[in-house]
């Protein structure tokens, strides 16, 4: 549990933020220049705020009133910097080793081999950072921070320079860190897809101030918070667990049981019973009337229209699912008119399996 209260003035910019970050992953999301990096710098002990208090798991790290400022190297907070900051004089191996050097002996965490393997940097081990491409540098920086087995891992846009394939490879592993080792993370990203997969808590930052903070699903599904988000990023999060393997055979689909009904999803490996979260982008939800033709969309859930709000040039429809949970659908006003949608109306929500992967 991380508690942050900060007040800090910079020329031309004032940071005035407070939020709690419960165990799990807290993502900070906000425009360029909103103050995200400044916040995590304060948490890491690299910025001494004018006024502020930062407490991690009951340990006071910063308390300007009490004159407490634990130095960065005693905080055990791993930091993947936005600007890389690999040690130019050390090889990749040396950089990783540097991270491991001060890791407490007993602390849980992956070993070098695992990290190297995960990040696909085996071929780079003897190279120096000057010879790495942008993405390679980012991967090594992540590895280095992991090797220090931190109590809290700060990731400042760690994957901005990574291609989708590499991202897709690394994300599950960060998830594993979160779920299995319980390494709490403070995560900054511009990509809400990453945020949705990783975050348990979302902090929307605007111009140095927290606009909205809370559990991911709540914040994401809050049409009011949506102004802080890209229209394509708004959506809902459904929680469920992997159901028994589908009798329909091994076609690579996984059945996820949610309170609202089962969903078929592509490519989520895992043992039955494992908890999963599905982000359903408002943009991927189709609202259909009662009688449906046969389509390739396998997932159809009954739903009730809860609210219709404008989100120009579209509208956002909030759908209550009978078993609990909500979905958002981003559709045109014209469709609303066509279908005669209004709160209370019974409809079906159609979601492609491919959109849930």
């Amino acid at each position: 549990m991380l508690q942050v209260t900060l007040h800090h003035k910079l020329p031309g910019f004032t940071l005035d933020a407070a939020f709690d970050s419960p165990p799990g992953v807290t993502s900070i999301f906000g425009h360029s220049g909103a103050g995200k990096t400044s916040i995590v710098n304060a948490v890491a002990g690299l910025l001494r705020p004018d006024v502020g208090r930062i407490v991690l798991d009951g340990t006071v790290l910063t308390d300007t009133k009490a004159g407490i400022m634990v130095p960065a190297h005693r905080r055990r907070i791993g930091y993947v910097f936005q600007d890389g900051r690999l040690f130019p004089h050390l090889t990749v191996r040396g950089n990783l080793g540097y991270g491991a050097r001060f890791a407490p002996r007993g602390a849980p965490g992956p070993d070098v081999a695992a990290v190297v393997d995960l990040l696909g940097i085996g071929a780079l081990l003897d190279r120096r950072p000057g010879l790495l491409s942008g993405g390679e540098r980012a991967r090594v920086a992540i590895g280095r921070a992991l090797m220090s087995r931190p109590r809290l891992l700060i990731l400042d846009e760690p994957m901005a320079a990574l291609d989708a394939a590499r991202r897709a490879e690394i994300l599950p592993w960060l998830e594993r860190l979160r779920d299995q080792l319980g390494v709490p993370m403070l995560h900054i990203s511009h990509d809400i897809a990453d945020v949705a997969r990783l975050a348990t808590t979302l902090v929307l930052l605007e111009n140095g101030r927290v606009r909205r903070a809370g559990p991911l699903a709540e914040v994401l599904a809050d049409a009011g918070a949506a102004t802080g988000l890209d229209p394509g990023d708004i959506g809902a999060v459904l929680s469920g667990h992997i159901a028994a393997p589908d009798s329909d055979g091994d076609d690579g689909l996984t059945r996820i049981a949610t309170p609202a009904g089962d969903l078929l999803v592509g490519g989520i490996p895992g043992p039955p019973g494992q908890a999963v979260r599905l982000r359903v982008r408002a943009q991927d939800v189709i609202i259909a009337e009662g009688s449906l033709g046969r389509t390739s969309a396998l997932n159809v859930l009954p739903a009730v229209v809860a609210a219709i709000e404008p989100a120009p040039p579209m509208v956002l429809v909030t759908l209550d699912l009978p078993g609990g949970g909500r979905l958002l659908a981003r559709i045109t006003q014209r469709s609303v008119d066509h279908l005669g949608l209004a709160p209370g109306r019974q409809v079906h929500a159609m979601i492609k399996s491919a959109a849930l992967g």
Partner: protein
Amino acid sequence: MTGWLPPEAWTALALSLRVSTVATVMSLPLALACALALARGRFIGRGALDGLVHLPLILPPVVTGYLLLLAFGRRGPIGAWLEQTLGITLAFRWTGAALAAAIMGFPLMVRAMRLAIEAVDPRLEAAAATLGAPRPWVLATVTLPLILPGILAGAVLAFAKAMGEFGATITFVSNIPGETRTLPSAIYTALQIPGQEVAVARMALVSVAVALLAVAVSDRLSRAVARRIAGN
């Protein structure tokens, strides 16, 4: 070859090499500490330290030599103490010549190191701190390797200066053959005799050759280091 230079000149060369090497090596750690303190420190007396370090550069060498004589001579407070407690005699010994050379080269060494330290990106040091490294460790494993070219540059400047230092040395430890008559002192001595131009030129040439060799080697080294870091 031995005929080309008189034997005492070879003795003086050997002594100069020893004196310069010892002076350079022994002053490295202290110079590094001073450079770090001056580049990164925020303490009272920083200005005073800065001034003190520069003194040997500013003062005419004979004055520096005279001050050394007063402080480190047998009768000098520090000299007497060193001799009684540690058994180290500096006065009129080659060790004293090394001290003089070290002091004369000190400002050069510190400056070079300090410039290098100031060019190190403090964000890298911050990164090391987040990995759990305490400040001294960060210095040793991040700052130090990054300033290696600066350390080399400082060392070679000091070495070159030591090879040429004369005024402070002769004033402090005299010009005793085999003990404190370094190559520059030998050159000075030869200069006292008219018609010794050839001998002077030869000795100067040897001195220059040695120092240039050191310069060349250190340059190559520091380039190699820099190239490895830059990665091309």
